[in-house]
């Protein structure tokens, strides 16, 4: 077993992934992976292409079912493998995709409205009236992610970075206990990156955030624990300096 | 027209309205209008287009003779597109917008049933030219095709008496005509001493093409040593696959004869008949009928529609119906529906096959029944011709219908119960 380094929060982990494996057509995308994260933690996951980062997120969010292993979440230790995507999301796991996926035909406001933490059953939604409280909350979030001015624009018209922020905003609106963020900084200008870093750091104050990122500079700026994935398993874990000093990691990144 | 101009601005719907309006205004012209209500598109176009052409030819001929009552005839052709509700819609349009004096049309029973309430409500007049299952007689419809006793029963008699068939396979397309006909035949066969176990019934969908299993089932019927015969009410295209499979299975008409009620010259023109020689069809008319009137009719038809076209039974029914209507109008001196309906009962007209058809008080014709054997050239060799048989609206072989009678002359009722001596209903139940 790799990943022997545990911090204090691991005692009452929010997410606990144990010995998970999955393979596609004979290719082992995740190989006996175990991973934990505490309630208020920011964690970066790095690793070369094909290391299983996205698959890992797919498993946590219910998109992919692992062949074996356990995934537990929250205080009640929910078995995520038994839940559907929408149930997992409602249980408090939010996800941001690598390519910004917002509903481009709808306005920023409407995107946030849909994400707002509310009863999600069809009949409740049918009866839903957007009240002043909701508006205030949406405006707050928009302000937080820097889209206050764009609230009534069609989200398809936003710039790439703005879409990323909108998506983060949607995550915040869901008020999840765990945030999974896939390459938030891709395609962003330097200024935008800084803003994104601040957003994620702020978010991690009240919840757990897992960031998957390629860009080492960005990870450094996050200033958090890092987990290195390789060939579907955890190769190393610790501070960025710690893992970058690990010969295995150097080997993987620079070697072959 | 100012009014119309305003309407035009309201859009497409109004545009259509205005067309209808102007048509309505023209309707009181100097012509006698004849509605032709046959599908020109959709599945039934295959059969019905021919009848539309027949009507156009007959109208052209009548106009060449000077029309009727000094007026020219004008055909109003509509296309109900094999869509049954559309038949009702078009019939209403013909009667109220085009104000036609008479309609010739429909092929399938369901289309007739769709039109019935409309013509009864608006007191229209329809000539229906196709063989059908009977069990109907409307004040406003004249049935010039065969009722079951003018086709199915004589054909079954022929099977029983001439061919010695002991076991029957009743194969039909799953719709009303085969269902009702087979029900009548079942009762008839039982009355002739054929046990129920010797009657095999199968229904297939329209346009069915996969016949191998059914043909095998029919062959297997012969296993108890009785002579098997097939009575086919298979409709339209499906026949082609059926006969092809029959031929492939090497079943000759001498082994298992097939008599069909829906296969005529037109249907045979769609396939190679060399393997079907000897199979039978029962109709009131065959193109091969040897009579001067027929020769003349065929000549005119080929000149009108093309050398390759054939004639068939519904065409003769249309021809008789049209000519009877012409005679009745001339006799009544008007095209008024009630006057014509009264005048046409008892009217006669020569059949194309020789002899005379007569319009009976139950709105059906008396016509001879012909049985023909298929020949290699796609024509029929007539092997049996009866004396004229009066068409029976309500069959005598079903207990519920046995007591019923239709008589529009004396009883003035289409569904008269001879037991209770009451008119069950004035209008048809559709």
């Amino acid at each position, binding site marked *: 077993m790799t990943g022997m380094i545990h911090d204090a929060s691991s005692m009452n982990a929010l997410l606990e992934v144990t010995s998970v494996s999955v393979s*596609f*057509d004979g290719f082992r995308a995740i190989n006996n992976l175990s991973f934990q994260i505490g309630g208020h933690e920011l964690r970066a996951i790095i690793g070369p292409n094909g290391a299983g980062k996205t698959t890992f997120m797919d498993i946590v969010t219910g998109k992919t079912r692992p062949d074996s292993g356990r995934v537990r979440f929250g205080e009640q230790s929910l078995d995520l493998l038994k839940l559907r995507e929408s149930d997992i999301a409602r249980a408090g796991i939010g996800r941001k995709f690598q390519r910004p996926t917002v509903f481009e035909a709808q306005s920023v406001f409407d995107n946030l409205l849909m994400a707002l933490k509310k009863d999600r059953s069809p009949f409740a939604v049918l009866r839903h009236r957007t009240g002043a409280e909701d508006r205030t909350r949406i405006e707050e979030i928009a302000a937080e992610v820097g889209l206050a001015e764009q609230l009534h624009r069609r989200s398809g018209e936003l710039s790439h970075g703005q879409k990323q922020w909108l998506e983060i905003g949607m995550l915040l609106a869901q008020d999840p206990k765990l945030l999974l963020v896939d390459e938030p900084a891709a395609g962003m200008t330097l200024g935008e990156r800084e803003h994104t870093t601040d957003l994620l750091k702020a978010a991690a104050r009240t919840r757990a955030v897992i960031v998957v990122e390629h860009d080492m500079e960005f990870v450094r700026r996050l200033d958090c624990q890092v987990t290195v994935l390789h060939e579907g398993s955890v190769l190393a874990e610790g501070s960025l300096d710690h893992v970058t000093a690990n010969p295995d990691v150097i080997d993987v990144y620079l070697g072959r | 027209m100012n009014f119309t101009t305003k309407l035009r601005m309201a859009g497409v719907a109004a545009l259509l309205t205005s067309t209808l309006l102007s048509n309505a205004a023209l309707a009181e012209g100097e012509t006698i209008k004849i509605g032709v209500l046959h599908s020109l*598109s959709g*599945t039934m*176009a*295959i059969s019905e*287009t021919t009848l539309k052409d027949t009507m156009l030819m007959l109208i052209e001929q009548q106009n060449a003779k000077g029309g009727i009552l000094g007026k020219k005839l004008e055909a109003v052709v509509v296309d109900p597109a094999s869509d049954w509700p559309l038949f009702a819609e078009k019939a209403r349009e013909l009667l109220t917008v085009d104000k036609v004096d008479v309609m010739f049309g429909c092929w399938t029973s369901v289309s007739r049933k769709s039109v019935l309430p409309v013509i009864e409500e608006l007191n229209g007049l329809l000539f229906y030219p196709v063989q059908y299952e009977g069990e109907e007689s409307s004040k406003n419809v004249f049935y010039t095709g065969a009722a079951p006793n003018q086709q199915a029963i004589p054909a079954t008699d*022929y099977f029983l*008496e*001439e*061919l*010695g068939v002991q076991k029957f396979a009743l194969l039909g397309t*799953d719709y009303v005509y085969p269902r009702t006909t087979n029900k009548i035949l079942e009762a008839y066969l039982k009355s002739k001493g054929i046990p129920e176990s010797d009657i*095999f*019934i*199968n*229904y*297939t*969908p329209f*346009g*069915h*093409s*996969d016949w*191998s*299993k059914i043909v*095998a*089932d029919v*062959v*297997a019927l*012969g*296993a*108890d*040593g*009785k002579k098997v015969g097939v009575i086919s009410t298979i409709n339209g*295209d499906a026949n*082609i*696959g059926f006969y*092809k*499979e029959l*031929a*492939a*299975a*090497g079943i000759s*008409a*001498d*082994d298992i*004869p097939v008599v069909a009620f829906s296969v005529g010259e*037109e*249907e045979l*023109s*769609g*396939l*190679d008949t060399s*393997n079907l020689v*000897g199979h039978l069809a029962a109709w009131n008319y065959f193109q091969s009928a040897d009579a001067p009137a027929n020769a003349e009719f065929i000549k005119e038809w080929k000149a009108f529609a093309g050398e390759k076209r054939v004639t068939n039974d519904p065409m003769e029914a249309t021809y008789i119906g049209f000519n009877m209507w012409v005679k009745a109008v001339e006799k009544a001196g008007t095209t008024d529906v009630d006057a014509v309906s009264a005048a046409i009962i008892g009217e006669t007209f020569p059949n194309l096959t020789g002899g005379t058809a007569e319009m009976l008080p139950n709105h059906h014709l008396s016509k001879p029944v012909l*049985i023909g*054997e298929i020949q290699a050239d796609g024509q029929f*060799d*007539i*092997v049996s011709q009866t004396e004229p048989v009066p068409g029976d609206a309500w069959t005598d072989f079903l207990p519920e219908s046995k007591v019923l009678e239709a008589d529009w002359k004396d009883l003035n009722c289409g569904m008269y119960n001879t037991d209770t001596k009451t008119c069950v209903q004035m209008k048809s139940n559709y």
Partner: protein
Amino acid sequence: MVPLMLRHCLVLIATLVLLSPVKAQDSDLQMLLQANRAAIEKASRSTIEPVLDALVASKLPSVSSFLEKWREKEVWQRKDDGRFFFARPADGGQYMLIDIATGAEAGLADKSAIDQLKPNSGVRAVIASTLVEFQLSDPDPLRRTEALTALERDANESHLEPLRGAIESETDPALKARKIRLERLITIRFGSDAARRAEAIRSFAGDLGVDARGALNPLVATTPGFAEDLPAGVNVARMLTPGKSIDLDTAYGMLVDADKAPRVVSTEARKQALIAHMADGQVGGIPVASLDTQEARDRAYMALVADGRVPPLITLEMKQAEVARYRFYEAYAETDPTLTEAAEDTLSSISLQVGFNRFLDLVLDGLSLASIYFLAAIGLAITFGVMGVINMAHGEFIMIGAYTGYVVQQFIPNYTASILLALPLAFAVAFLAGVALERLVIRHLAHRPLETLLATFGISIALQQIAKNIFGTQARPLTSPAWLDGAWVLNDVVSISYIRIAIFVLALVFLVLLLFILNRTRLGLEVRAVTQNPRMASSMGINPDRINMLTFGLGSGIAGIAGVAIGLFAKVTSELGSGYIVQSFMTVVVGGVGNIWGTLAGASMIGSLQKAIEFFNPSNTLAAQTYMIIFIIVFIQFRPKGIIALKGRAAGD
């Protein structure tokens, strides 16, 4: 049979008596015919036999040739004097008459002056059966075959001896075998020696022929009967217990029919009785106006019964009591128990064989249907499966192929040549149509699969109507060459038509061909590359537009060929294709998209399942189709990706 013989003799005497008034120059045959003129003119199966017997009994040499000509509808009758002739067409629409006895020419006649005798097939069968004795030992093997065919259709007791006599002298081994078999069959039915009959019966053990069962089944046919005590001489098949093996009502009905028990008073009869006994607005003390329930009517009727004015109702107990007085049984018509026992044994051995063979036949039917579905769907599997294009006009490509076949046959009358030409031509025409469709429409709708569905639906209605405008609404003939006529007959139960075999072979050829093209050729490689990753493929120098065009053309072309095949066994109309489109889509979806093996699996499953459902519900083919579709809907719920699921772009992710 004796009375029949007597009748024949009487007819013969009558004929001889009638001979004298006929003109002197007439031959004996003509005279004999004239004597029976009415029966011959209006020949009917039920009346013709005495005439034929008279002809045979006359022993005139020209009888057999006359009968043959008569059967072939080659006998004519002169209208003015009613004399019979053979005739052959001569110049100027006239006919040369030929004397029936001498074969000499007897002068020309206008067609209007003579009538052709058209014996119907019932009469022809009787004539053929009469001809049997003339033909059984005829030197011409064709005539002997004819005689045997006639015997197979319709034999009687009188044929047994001549047939037995003709076996020994038979030289053709095939005909000899047929004669021997026939002899055994006729012995079963008409033989007089019980031992010989039993032997013949046993000899058919395991025989699959319909004729064998046809001879055996009448022996074991039973009729129900009853008696107070079993009478002697009745060959009882089994005893019937009322209420168990026979319905109580049926049993009671038998008693009623034999006047052994009073008739049950039906509801209707009771109603009529009430009407008959109406007086002063009431019946049996109950006002008529309140007789609007069955219960009130029953009370009124019982009141009448109490007065003894109507027959009492028959209660269940009364029925049971009556029935209990008798013993019910099923009896064989054949009185000799050894024969019925032999027949039962033989039939049970046959029925096992028949069951197995019927299953085999069903499998063949299923395979055949599957191959048709496969052919219809395979083109779709390519366009839909590989390219993800929903082509609603696929059915119309099938139609185009069929019409191409029809047009080719208009120019090339030789059916073999025309079919051989029609196949590649149908491919070419449909290929071009497909390429045109791809370039003009589908290319512009890339990645909008649902919209291609709508656009191609538009194409579909337009093409159908155009076909109607060109070819008319009537079905057109597409005739298979003579060598595809008929069926491959394994036995009387298992057979399959050659056309279906040809379609099956065609389907196999296409399966192999497509597998080859997709897996072993450059085109196939490129197709797969474009399917899996179009961007990568184009960067490798593959032109995806060209590949899509070719793929679509290929799929359409195959549909065209399927059209020729379907036209051959069914019909050619403008709606030919639309009948296959939904089925084809279901075949592809059930099998698994993007995979030829999947389509094969889908077609096999649908074909065999449909036949299986038809087997359990033989009288309603429509129901079989309904259940089939419902099954497919449910099946898709459990295997949404079909039998053989693929991953990747083609799988629709």
